[in-house]
């Protein structure tokens, strides 16, 4: 369990000493299952800071929404730390204008798994080291945390922030990528018709709300490809061609930039699985280019760089 | 529009009768459209009022909202002047005489000509927004309608003389004793005989009288922003100052939601609004 008092104390210090102008963290939601991202600019506001397993957003997505020269403090878990690094590599922020408060993370609780089990009439949620306790209109329930973690978190191999300025909390045991690789390989081993059928089934629910895009820290283009008119890249509506085009192209735009945080899936109102696409691309990055997103703030992603000794001569 | 049996989203088919550039830099092009079906023409002119607009449709590209730049008496055609800005207007610029084109209209409320009868008209336009004011002037100035209105004062400013639209008529209006036209360009040019300066300043200079008069202003937002106070300073009340607004449009009939200004839709409740009406709406332009 993260030490809330220590987190608050550090956030207050950062503001008090003028190290940062804003601390990006979470505050209690107006409903029990949804804490909200929060932007603390004064010491008093920090009393309202909250941090728990239901904090489901990748806070790095807000980095490109804050003026570039503002000094920002941010709470980061493993995936968020790497997303921040990826943004620094893409020159969306300077490391000097950031103070990262690292929180080792066991996983983000998927609120939909709670609702699946106990319904939507949730009155309150609390956590201890192992369990999540849920008060509903019908009574109290408790589940082990690892029953409720989001799927991406179950496969995570970077739970500890790798380049935070300060770490609050005990390091979490790291796992390796075997599980992540297995999941990709298992899907990949299916016949192409089966894989396409799965893809179609997921994509056809899409309503083009672009919650996935907005929740993703790496989707910060002022004009997304779906908004281009000349040339037009995909159909705009909820047609099979349009929806499939949207999902595939967005996944490819994430190649070498995605940190497998799963924020896209958590944001989707239609419960669409989409991480299987980016997981495959990240797998290819690992296997073919020995590259993982956001491990440092210098290495360029393979598909964003062109050097004369590239393996494939795409360009003339 | 409903009488032809079509849904209000379906354009009627028209053809390009004539098309020619208005501005020397070729950014502004006039298209004159003829009706494919006489019934459509009848229906159009029955409903038409200067100040209204139409949505011109290029199949496969989309639609563009353009003010009608012709008066009914001019003939069995409808004139528009389009500035080349985006994908649809670029496609409009590529059309030639004889090409098919779609049209939905007339849309919007148009100028409240009934209320303006008996009054002096001060018509102030800037840039390519002059097109509906041109239609208004052509309508008012026609012998059938002239006696319904009082003194006619025009102020028309463009960045350069090359960008002036409808040059032939404008030149004739300078010679016409029945109207007072003040033309302006932003910066001095050789051989320019008229005003040099921004429209709001020219308006102050010309100082039209507000007595029994209405003023209508159509121009780029920045021009309108400074012209409206100039008119108020000259004594025009908000009820006697009118403007035509623009916003991104799609359906043109008050259903898709996007051109709203508070509870009003610019396509349906406008595009012509008085300053008094605008003051009651949120500053959401």
């Amino acid at each position, binding site marked *: 369990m993260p030490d809330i008092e220590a987190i608050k104390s550090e956030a207050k210090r950062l503001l008090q000493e003028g190290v940062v102008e804003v601390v990006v963290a979470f505050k209690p939601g107006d409903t029990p299952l949804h804490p909200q991202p929060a932007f603390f600019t004064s010491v008093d506001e920090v009393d309202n800071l909250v941090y728990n397993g239901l904090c489901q957003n990748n806070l790095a*997505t807000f980095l490109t929404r804050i003026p570039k020269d503002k000094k920002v403090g941010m709470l980061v878990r493993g995936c968020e730390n790497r997303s921040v690094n990826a943004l620094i590599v893409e020159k969306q922020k300077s490391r000097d204008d950031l103070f990262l408060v690292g929180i080792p993370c066991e996983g983000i609780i998927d609120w939909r798994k709670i609702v699946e089990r106990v319904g*939507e009439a949730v009155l309150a949620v609390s956590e201890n080291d192992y369990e999540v306790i849920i008060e509903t209109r019908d009574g109290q329930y408790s589940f082990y945390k690892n029953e409720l973690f989001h799927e991406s978190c179950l496969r995570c191999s970077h739970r500890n922030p790798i380049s935070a300025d300060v770490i609050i909390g005990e390091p979490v045991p790291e796992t390796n990528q075997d599980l992540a690789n297995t999941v990709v390989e298992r899907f990949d081993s299916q016949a192409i018709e089966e894989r396409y059928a799965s893809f179609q089934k997921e994509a056809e*629910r899409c309503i083009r709300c672009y919650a996935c895009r*907005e929740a993703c820290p790496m989707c910060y283009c002022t004009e997304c490809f779906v908004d281009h008119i000349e040339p037009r890249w995909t159909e705009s509506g909820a047609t099979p061609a349009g929806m499939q085009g949207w999902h595939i192209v967005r996944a490819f735009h994430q190649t070498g930039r995605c940190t497998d945080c799963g924020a896209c899936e958590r944001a989707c109102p239609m419960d669409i699985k989409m991480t299987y696409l980016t997981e495959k691309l990240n797998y290819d990055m690992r296997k073919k280019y020995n590259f993982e997103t956001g491990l440092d703030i210098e290495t360029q992603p393979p598909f964003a760089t062109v050097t004369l000794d590239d393996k494939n001569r795409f360009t003339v | 529009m409903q009488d032809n049996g079509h849904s209000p989203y379906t354009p009627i088919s028209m053809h390009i009768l004539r098309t020619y550039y208005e501005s020397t830099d070729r950014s502004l092009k006039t298209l004159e459209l003829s009706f494919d079906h006489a019934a459509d023409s009848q229906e159009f002119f029955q409903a038409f009022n200067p100040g209204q607009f139409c949505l011109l449709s290029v199949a496969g590209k989309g639609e563009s909202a353009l003010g009608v730049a012709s008066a009914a008496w001019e003939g069995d055609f409808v004139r528009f002047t389009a500035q080349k800005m985006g994908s649809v207007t670029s496609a409009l610029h590529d059309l030639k005489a004889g090409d098919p084109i779609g049209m939905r209209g007339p849309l919007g409320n148009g100028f409240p000509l009934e209320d303006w009868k008996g009054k002096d008209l001060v018509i102030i336009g800037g840039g390519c927004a002059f097109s509906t004011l041109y239609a208004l002037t052509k309508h008012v100035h026609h012998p059938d309608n002239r006696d319904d209105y009082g003194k006619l004062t025009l102020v028309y400013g463009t960045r350069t003389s090359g960008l002036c639209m409808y040059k032939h008529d404008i030149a004739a209006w300078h010679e016409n004793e029945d109207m007072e036209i003040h033309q302006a360009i932003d910066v001095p040019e050789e051989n320019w005989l008229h005003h040099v300066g921004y429209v709001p300043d020219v308006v102050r200079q010309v100082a039209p009288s507000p007595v029994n008069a209405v003023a209508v202003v159509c121009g780029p937002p920045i021009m309108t922003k400074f012209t409206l106070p100039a008119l108020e300073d000259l004594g025009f009340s908000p009820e006697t100052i009118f403007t035509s607004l623009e916003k991104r449009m799609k359906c043109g009939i*008050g*259903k898709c*939601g996007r051109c709203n200004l508070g509870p009003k839709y610019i396509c349906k409740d406008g595009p012509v609004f008085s300053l008094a009406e605008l003051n009651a709406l949120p500053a959401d332009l």
Partner: protein
Amino acid sequence: MRKETIMNLILEKQALPALFQSWREHYDVYLPQKMERFSHFMPLSDESVLVTDEPHNTRIPPKALFLPMTEALVEFTRFGSYEDAKQTIQPRIVFAIRPCDAQAVQLLDTSFIQEGYVDPFWVEKRAKTITIGLGCHEPCQTGFCTTVGYGPFNKSDLDVLLTDLGDLYLVETISEAGEKCFQGFPTASDEIYEQALMVQHDTHDQMPVAFETENLKEKLEQNFNSDYWEEISQSCLGCGVCTFLCPTCFCFDIVDEAQRKERVRNWDTCMFRTYSLEASGHNPRPSRVERTRQRLSHKYVYWLDQINQIGCTGCGRCVRYCPVGLDIRAMLRQAQTLPFEVSHAG
């Protein structure tokens, strides 16, 4: 209340499958069915898994049955002319539509059916639809229908209203079309009727007041330039979840799909940057601040200006599914703390 309805009947839940089959002879029957982990209005088929007893509405509102996410409006012909897109709608019965969603469809009627411009696609779908509402005998956690002037057993726009009484429903038929759907069903006894009335009143009364609506419009209007809008929209991602899942949101985009030779309309949202982006590059609503102001003002100010009704039926979806947990009820409670301003917006 008794005067409004034509008949009060009883429908036993075990009779539902047979009843659906009898309807299927002449109608498509739409009802909430399982889709992944949520419920969705789909046509009844032999593979359907019904979900009619969850204590809240479906994920996507049934407005999608009248205003589809994507719909062709115009077809381009080879000769440069245009035709109305053809629409084939079978008569249908929508079963277990919630009062919040039905009320919303009635609100949308005022936009799509207006003197002078009538949307033929909407009108035809409406004419061919019979709505059988299911009242909410358990108030949902995030709904606030009573706060905005409606309620869990509101009869607006319903042909029939069902009240769940355990093993059976009270069936209040409201229109002739609704009555025809339940021909031959037994009349409800006074006892059953009174029991249902009590359920209806109790549920209505149990719902907490989410925010005060008195003077809310004035507070929102008069604080057009307040920092309030920046405060409430800080963490907004600018996606379209709230507006797409909203039963009263109707904004649509119109685009040409040249390869299909069609002009189509798609759901659109005032929360997207491109919504009011003009060709010149000017955007009247350049940031999330202005766009959030537009969304809240449309529902709680402009709808009132237009038809004197709040443009929100309190269905609660935006609260449940906002990816960052923003809650419109909290935003409006905060709006009520704003001062009245003497000078007007604009």
